[in-house]
């Protein structure tokens, strides 16, 4: 350690120069990439604040598109509410995704608990089935499912957008992996004390498993917040339409007012960006966990 510090003090000018150049190049590259990932978001936010549609159309032809100048204000945001019940779509989306996540956490974690912790006939087979199901993408069942919910008379409702997505094989697998690693002693002690399985699940397993609950919640949120194909097929009227379909239809209305469209897009994006920045660590950890899929 001392040897290192002493050599550090007598570094040659050449070494220091090389190190400085490398530092500048490194941060230069990092910043350039940062710009690449941020400029469309910046463009969206800046354009949403420009109240003069003519200016937006002129600015998009140059790099001025990224600069907030000219007449700025929230008029585009008010216009969105004037043209469409934005709050309705936001509530629909929040309710649908919230229900999928909450019911999913309960249903998938209890199933995983049975698979990981209870002794019963058929458990091995069922575990195999659940793992095999991970491979089937939603896209492979979308068309027959549409035919099915049509027969049920479920089209145009909240539950058609919720019930098919509550149970999720990959979520069960993630819970299973976590539960199987928990120590058994606490559970056995509780059993000796005469606690029922539901109480053990609720009072012992759930509190010990907060990280995996957070992971599953975030992954399910990211998946279903983005749902587009399914609601496109099962919602027609405004009543049950989620944000993404409303965005697509708003985009399809002529004349296309870009200020309003960008305000609409910003109102979808900003809340999620804020949640992401607040819980960044959790997001990153959840995504990293998804890397074990099928591994």
């Amino acid at each position: 350690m001392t040897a290192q510090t002493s050599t550090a003090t007598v570094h040659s000018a050449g070494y220091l120069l090389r190190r400085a150049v490398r530092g500048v190049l490194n941060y230069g590259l990092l910043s350039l990439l940062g710009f690449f990932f941020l400029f469309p978001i910046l463009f969206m936010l800046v354009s949403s604040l420009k109240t003069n549609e003519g200016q937006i159309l002129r600015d998009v032809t140059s790099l001025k598109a990224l600069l907030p100048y000219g007449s700025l204000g929230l008029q585009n945001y008010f216009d969105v509410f004037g043209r469409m019940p934005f709050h309705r779509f936001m509530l629909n989306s929040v309710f649908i995704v919230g229900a999928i996540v909450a019911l999913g956490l309960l249903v998938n974690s209890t199933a995983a608990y049975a698979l990981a912790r209870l002794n019963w006939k058929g458990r091995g087979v069922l575990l195999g089935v659940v793992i095999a199901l991970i491979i089937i993408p939603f896209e492979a069942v979308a068309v027959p499912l549409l035919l099915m919910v049509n027969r049920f008379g479920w089209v145009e409702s909240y539950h058609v957008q919720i019930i098919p997505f509550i149970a999720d094989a990959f979520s069960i697998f993630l819970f299973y992996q976590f539960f199987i690693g928990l120590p058994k002693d606490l559970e056995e002690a509780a059993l000796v004390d005469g606690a029922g399985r539901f109480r053990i699940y609720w009072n012992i397993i759930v509190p010990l498993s907060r990280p995996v609950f957070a992971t599953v919640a975030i992954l399910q949120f990211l998946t279903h917040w983005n749902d587009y194909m399914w609601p496109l097929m099962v919602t027609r009227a405004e009543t049950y339409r989620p944000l993404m379909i409303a965005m697509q239809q708003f985009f399809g209305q002529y004349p296309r007012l870009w200020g309003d469209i960008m305000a609409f897009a910003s109102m979808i994006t900003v809340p999620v960006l804020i949640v992401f920045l607040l819980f960044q660590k959790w997001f990153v950890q959840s995504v990293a966990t998804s890397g074990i899929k099928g591994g």
Partner: protein
Amino acid sequence: MAWLFMSPAAILLLVFLIVPFLMAFGLAFTDQRLIPNPNLSTQFVGFRNFVRMFQNETFRRGLLNNFIFTAVVVPVQTGLALLLAILVNQKIRLSNVFRATYFSPVVVTMTVVAVVWFFLYNPGEGTINAFIQAISFGRLGPYDWLNDPKLAFPAIMVLSIWQGVGFQMVIYLAGLQEIPLEIYEASSIDGANKIQQFFYVTLPMLRNTTIFVVIATTILAFKLFVQVDIMTRGGPQDATMTTMLHVINEGFRNLRVGYAAAVTVVFFLIVLGVSLLQRFFLEEERTV
């Protein structure tokens, strides 16, 4: 007792995943329509849907596009993800700010991404054209990105990479952090420089991560739908048609459920093949 815990998930998976999945295989051999015609009952048609599918210009173009998309996006996105992961894994100031920045497009929903980039690609004179003209000193462009059959699909590839690469970066980052530092120390004592360390330590240690990232990105490439549906509807001249867009156009918009189910079966067999490939490569690793 166990069934009480298991049955809600088991019943839901059975009704909404297993049954429709099996239905797809049955429907693929019929002329089922979404809204049945009371005068014409649904009939068994053998392999007719499959024959028609492969005679269909649009389907063939869509399937080919999925393969082209995979061939371009998978290597580019995987390589970029690894580069980003290595950059933000450096022990330097602001590295978590850069990490959050690169990840942020992942939380922007694809619907919004498609709409915003549609405007950036503004025919003739969008911001992207302004960039390219500035960088090339006015020699390149302006291009009519989304209306030019040659440029429309590459344009969609760019925004897909932009939105998705942060996800893979985080998976690589987790992989990088699992590599024991001692291996790097040992290799530098042996005289390996940074580049040798990358090829002889980092890459081999990230083998399983890379297999996962490549397979996951390939499967996503075959699901390509939202971007093309919003931005180009598969046009111009089917230049951005994809298998999934063809499924939705036929099964939902044209009500031809039997035919769409047949396309779905082909789509699933491809996804299954890709997934089995992953199992195969990972298995090999375990026996070594």
